[in-house]
């Protein structure tokens, strides 16, 4: 694809879940939603209204939600557990491991409030380690779309793909990058820009920052390749290897720099034995109550820092 116009309209990717799950529920009566008393903020209201027979609300009992979803899946249902990322990855982590991943059941964990996006809720609600945990489970696929349309497409694919999938959404709004007809494939990086001097690999709510950074670099005569790595597991290893032809890679993620996208890319680089890497992400520290943008800034997840890290690699 090519990017020409600057993104302007903004939407939270949890809204993409709210809309796409209704479309899926309509066409497939096996699609279930399991809520845990946060249906409103996770945007399941329309689904509940339209398909009450495909909906459960098990209250504030995430562990039970995971087990129930597994039980439903053994009968051929495709349950989406809908919760916040911090609970979906941590409170029910062992349940997901034992009852979803170990028996490889067709359960989807759909999580709003990914990364620093629930800014004002503070550190208790900001999921900075969720993708790392989910990436460690055999059989699990781990996805975060960059914007509304890509997230819808990826949710649809997750529903079609047999097996456990962890989907992470933003609570806050993020710019729309892609148009409605763009296609996405789980496990295949989306190249937003071709480039020769530096490769930027970003995911989720940081992709638009990377896009802006790439444009600024271009104005200064630096040609940046940009990949939207919406699936961090299975990682598109070939796409990372292609970036190694450039050799200089900057990763950007709204997640701890440990064991997320940056680490996944680093694993490939280390095994290939080449390349230089700069990882941008949460600096292995908890968040706090603040506007989401402020939290990004504190952690250096900014356009300026992406540009700076790219330049630093170029000057090495």
């Amino acid at each position, binding site marked *: 694809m090519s990017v020409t116009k600057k993104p302007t309209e903004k939407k939270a990717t949890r809204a993409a879940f709210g809309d796409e799950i209704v479309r899926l529920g309509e066409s497939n009566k096996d699609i279930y939603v399991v809520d845990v008393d946060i249906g409103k903020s996770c945007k399941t209201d329309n689904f509940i209204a339209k398909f009450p027979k495909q909906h*459960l609300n*098990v209250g504030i009992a995430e562990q039970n939600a995971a*087990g*129930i979803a*597994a039980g439903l899946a*053994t*009968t051929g249902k495709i349950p989406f557990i809908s919760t916040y990322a911090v609970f979906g990855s941590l409170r029910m982590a062992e349940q997901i491991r*034992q009852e979803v991943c170990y028996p490889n059941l067709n359960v989807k964990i759909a999580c709003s409030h990914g990364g620093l996006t629930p800014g004002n809720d503070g550190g208790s609600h900001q999921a900075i380690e969720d993708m790392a945990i989910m990436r460690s489970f055999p059989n699990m696929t781990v996805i975060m779309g960059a914007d509304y349309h890509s997230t819808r497409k990826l949710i649809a694919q997750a529903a079609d793909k047999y097996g456990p999938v962890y989907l992470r959404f933003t609570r806050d709004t993020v710019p729309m990058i892609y148009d409605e007809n763009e296609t996405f494939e789980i496990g295949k990086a989306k190249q937003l820009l071709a480039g020769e001097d530096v490769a930027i690999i970003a995911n989720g709510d940081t992709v638009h920052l990377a896009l802006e950074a790439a444009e600024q670099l271009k104005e200064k005569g630096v040609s940046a390749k940009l990949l939207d790595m919406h699936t961090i597991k299975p990682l598109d290893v070939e796409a990372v290897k292609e970036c190694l032809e450039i050799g200089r890679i900057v990763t950007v993620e709204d997640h701890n720099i440990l064991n997320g996208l940056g680490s996944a890319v680093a694993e490939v680089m280390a095994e290939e034995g080449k390349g230089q890497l700069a990882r941008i992400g949460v600096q292995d520290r908890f968040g706090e109550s603040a506007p989401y943008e402020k939290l990004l800034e504190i952690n250096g997840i900014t356009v300026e820092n992406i540009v700076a890290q790219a330049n630093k690699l170029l000057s090495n």
Partner: protein
Amino acid sequence: MQRTSVEELKQHAIELRKTAVTMVYEAQSGHPGGSLSAADIIAALYFREMNIDPANPKWEDRDRFVLSKGHVAPIQYAALALKGFVPNESVYTLRQYGSPFQGHPDMKKCPGIDISTGSLGQGLSCAVGMAIAGQRDEKDYRVFAMVGDGECNEGQIWEAIQSAVKYQLDNLVVFVDNNRLQIDGFCDDVMPLQDLEKKFDAFGFDTTRIDGHNMETIVETLDTFAKQKNGKPKCIVCDTVKGKGVSYMEDQAAWHGKAPNKEEFEDAIKQLEGGLPV
């Protein structure tokens, strides 16, 4: 179809106990105590109550069984073998590399296992999910689950209980293997459970308490109490003896997860063949 008689069920229960103890002896690893306490209930379920087909273990309309206390897998494997889901001799590969008979039930490896378990406190939630699916799809199948008394320490058990009541799952029957022991000793010392019958009842289950080794009572409870279609899930608190049938294992926490040596094994089989003192 002629239903299995109480006398036959008692014989089956002895066979299951012998097979389970032999499996643990052969593997020199596994959990005999809780296998023996569960044997009579398992025999009644597999050989009389459950609508299952060994030739078609994934039959959509089958009754389901969830062994939430997954460590007693040997007693379930023994039932699967005697019922014909798996070849009889094959179960003695318990816990060996490549065996379908994993240390804890694995639905991917072993036919007749409806859900993988092993981490205590989780299986009952899965049973609730299966029962909800059956109810929503207007199927007649029922879901039977067995939890340990020690397992009821886990908070998730009570989450599952709440949801079974909310969704009015009268197609769900929960057995508590109330053998009064867990790993570190008596439940009353490790973490007192109070009166489990009253607790299930207070949460909204139809609850009864029976002698979990009296086959007549087990069968009667399944025939009457467990079959009521009244919008309430059922709980049968079964008073049992951990290690039941092998004198030196009875009521001994030490035999929770220990394999007998040769002499102990031969003694156990002799005792079991001598029949159960009722």
